[in-house]
């Protein structure tokens, strides 16, 4: 007789024949799967890949997205597919997809969030959201979802990636491969679900006042062109900088937004406009905010990873985790380097004990447990499932 709740992960290199099928086979360790979560690198034949998975799972609800790198117990990967299966009578799952998100981000968040089943005897609940990381204001998606779910339901998830090409990301729902959309899985469980969030970045120097911004764009800081002020703080000037050096600089020096509690929310700068001398961010940097330039080193980022993992396990209230899903900011890869991310993932695997681990490198992370804000950057979010 299969267990009340189970969690398994299968993975395969995407260059192999029937990669989707192989990964699904490894994940489907029992017959009563309730949800499949698929993370894979961008590829030409995504519908075929999803078809391979569904050839094994049939009509089991499926969500997923493309990534900027995949995560399993064995370490970080590129060009692979990772399939996670949740199963057993202890889970009840509903899924939804909202396409055309950028026309109405708030509405898309709300539509996707209306998927949570509430059967009796399943007191633990979470909504897992996967969004298009290139859609403009991700905060609006969270606001829409919160308007449907309220304060009582935690949210977790990440923004889909495209291997840092920054052109197009894809989301999966059932047999559909979508873009510019929000997909969600509402999970109700008889066992606890724990969320951990940490970034490990710290503020440096004096704060700056955002004097001009629009969604996804910072025009001026302290009443001067934002790019000039930003580069000045890094000790350089627009004229002295090779455009090809910019991505590495942006990756390792995000902006930190101040919160009432004193803790910063990190904002990833994606690119710069050298004509208007402004900066582009993954999420809104509101006009009137105080912001700091942020920095990190390998050890603070690695410590944050372990801390996020421990916090998610602690939230299970003594239950042993069956498995973990990690949403890890792609910018952390840039800071840690290949060796660092190997260390990070092995640290996660150690903290997970024998529990399987799946995850991906994202363009933004979602975790909302207290208050209304739920979007993070440069952060590691862990969902532990007991």
């Amino acid at each position, binding site marked *: 007789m299969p267990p009340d709740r189970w969690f398994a992960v299968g993975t395969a290199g995407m260059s192999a024949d029937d990669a989707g099928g192989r990964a699904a086979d490894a994940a489907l360790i029992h017959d009563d799967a309730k949800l499949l979560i698929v993370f894979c690198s961008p590829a030409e034949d995504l519908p075929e890949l999803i078809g391979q998975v569904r050839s094994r799972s049939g009509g089991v609800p499926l969500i997923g997205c493309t990534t900027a790198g995949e995560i399993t117990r064995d370490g970080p990967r590129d060009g692979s597919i990772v399939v996670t299966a949740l199963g057993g009578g202890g889970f009840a799952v509903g899924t939804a997809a909202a396409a055309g998100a950028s026309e109405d981000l708030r509405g898309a968040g709300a539509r996707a969030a209306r998927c949570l089943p509430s059967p009796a005897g399943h007191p633990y609940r979470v909504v897992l959201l996967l969004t298009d990381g290139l859609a403009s204001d991700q905060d609006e998606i969270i606001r829409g979802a*919160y308007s449907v779910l309220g*304060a009582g339901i935690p949210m977790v998830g990440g923004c889909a990636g495209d291997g840092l090409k920054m052109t197009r990301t894809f989301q999966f729902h059932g047999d559909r491969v979508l873009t510019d959309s929000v997909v969600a899985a509402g999970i109700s469980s008889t066992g606890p679900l724990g969320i951990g969030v940490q970034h490990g970045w710290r503020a440096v120097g004096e704060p700056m006042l955002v004097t001009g911004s629009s969604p996804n764009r910072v025009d001026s800081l302290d009443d001067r062109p934002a790019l000039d002020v930003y580069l000045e703080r890094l000790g350089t000037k627009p004229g002295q900088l090779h455009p090809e050096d910019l991505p590495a600089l942006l990756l390792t020096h995000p902006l930190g937004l101040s919160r*009432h509690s004193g803790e910063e929310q990190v904002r990833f700068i994606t690119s710069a406009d050298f004509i208007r001398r402004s900066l582009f961010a993954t999420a809104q940097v509101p006009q*009137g905010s105080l912001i700091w330039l942020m920095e990190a080193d390998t050890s603070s980022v690695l410590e944050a990873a372990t801390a996020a993992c421990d916090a998610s396990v602690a939230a299970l209230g003594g239950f042993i985790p069956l498995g973990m899903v990690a949403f890890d900011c792609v910018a952390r890869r840039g800071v840690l380097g290949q060796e660092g991310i190997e260390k990070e993932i092995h640290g996660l695997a150690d903290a997970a004990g024998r529990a399987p681990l799946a995850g991906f490198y994202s363009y933004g992370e979602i975790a909302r447990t207290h208050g209304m804000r739920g979007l993070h950057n440069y952060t590691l979010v862990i969902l532990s499932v007991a």
Partner: protein
Amino acid sequence: MPALNWFAPQLVAFLEAVWSARTEAAAGLMAVERAAEALDAEVAAIVCGDRVVAVVGYPEGAVPVRELTLSAADGPHHELTVPGVGVCRVATVLLDYPAGAIFLLARAGPDGDLSHDEAGLLRGMARVTSMAMRTQRLLDDERAAREESDRQATENGRLLAELTQRQVRLTELAGEQAALRRVATLVAAQADADRIFAAVAEEAGRLLQADVGAVSKFGPEGCFTVPAIWTETGTEFAFPVGEQLPVDEGSLTDRVLRSGRASRMDTYRSAVGRLAELRDRFGLGSMVGAPIVVGGRVWGMVSVSLLSSRAKAETLPAGSEQRLADFTELLATAISNAEARGELARLAEEQAALRRVATLVATGTAPEELFNAVTVEMRSLLNAGVTSLLRYEADGTASVLAASSDPGTEVPLLSHLTLEGTSVAATVLSRGRTARFDELGGPPGSVPAVFHSLGMHSAAGAPIVVEGGLWGVILAHWQDPQSVPSGTEGRIAQFTQLVATAISNAASRAQLAASRARIVVTADETRRRIERDLHDGIQQRLVTLALQLRTVQGVVPPEHAGLLSAISQADDQLIDILDELREISRGLHPAILSEGGLGPALRSLARRASVPTAMDIGEFGRLSQPVEAAAYYVVSEALTNVAKHANATVVHVDLGIKNSTLHLSIDDDGGGGADPARGSGIIGLVDRVDALGGKLTLRSPPGGGTSLVIELPLEPGLPPVRQRPRAG
């Protein structure tokens, strides 16, 4: 983070978000969402009677309307249980619009209660929400009205007029919002108070399309000042910014101050005195003022006015009072923040200056140096033209001991200036307390004449009272008449207290030094007397006794061998006793010092020292007896210490005179580690050197040898301090 840093930007961001809503309902929803985000709350709601206007934090379709309306009616500081979260703490704020509505916020966790700053932010957000929703209501109505007008063509004319009027009001509201945002952004950027007031004056003037906009600040004693004034470009208007003006009975200022409400005055015909003069000079016409209420007190007033040079009948339009009041009320928080910051900065500056002076007092800085420091600090702090410190003399005159002024102005340090005429110095002397004057005048050679000749026209001062007696006065002078800021006397008085302490300390120090010097001199004299007694009395008699013994020895027959041996032994002992006595008398007060001076005395010490000692003694004549004695005993004690403790192979003694000071240094190459706290020898030397107003420095790092440096003034000068009998 300081509250201001956090508060103002949050409010600006909130204002922008809520203002971007397109309907009243959307503005309400935007407000509750942004408030929940900014304050990390689980639930935020606007509740009006038994209706929930906007809410966030509950699952869709599961809003507990009755529970929320009851909770809102309960007032602030109670609990609300939110499904899936648990117990949250509730904060509520009453909204101006919708009438009777309440803004409710619930937050979970151990820090569920809003902090003081957060509660302030929530109140600000509630106010912005009311304004935005009211505006959107008008817009919604306008849309409805427009539809209605299409349907009812017959009523087009009437509706069109109404619409026009509303459109005007909408434009006004948008203008107010824009003005408010510009000022709030200044506050967020931490602009100084003057810049913010200037912005408020301009925004108010432009908003109401007036010729003049101004910010007034009420002072104590029925006065007010105008810190900022704005005029339409091209208008000549040399208003005396910063001047103290009286609040005349029946004036607009008087009405606003008394009632705490916005008021208008379409003519300034009844003004009298200084205000009438300003009215005639500038041609003030129709005027509206609204109070700035900070902390329940009418702090000041924002006013706008038309100039009478406009068409005769023109007055500010009806409703201007309300518009100005709305605008002003929203700015009160910003103004109070900016004002408080300015006050804090001023206080910090003042405290720093006081601390610097207090440090000088504590370290026993010479009075002249301290007096100079005080005048310099005060001049910069009070922004005065000249600051000075005067001592009252016994003959009823005053002397300038220290002064500070612009680099271009030289203040002569004159003594025995008379106190005739109208001067602060005379008033302080006669009344014994602080005083101020706005006009200076007096005959040549008097205190006021001196400062008047330096171009000064107003002054304030505070007495220096030393141990109950009036000792002197500190004065501050300004070029402009009537420019003495309120509270100046009190600020000067803080410095006079420090100066009095310093004078009193200097007097005590002088007395202590004199007493020590007396003790040292007495001890030296006693030693000299004992040495003389030894030399002239006991020593002489012992020498005589020894000679007599030798005589006896010569006449004793050789067969009395036992007796001869006894005499010989007694003789030897006598020689030993004589040597010992010589040693003692040398230690007490060497005759060679009294007779030969310091050079020969020190060289004799060096010859007798057990550690090889090199001397380098400069060329100079005889010095005063206490200085020679001090130097001699220092070297003597130091050489004894070297022999006892230092384990040194060589000692260098350098002695010279420079700038009327004796410089003496004794260095050895021994083990170091000498501790002045142990061994009374060094402590005795410190007393002796101190008594002469000198300085003794000991450096003795372990393993690095010992270095003793002494500086002794050749003419031990004591700080000049006199006590004056209490005046008045």
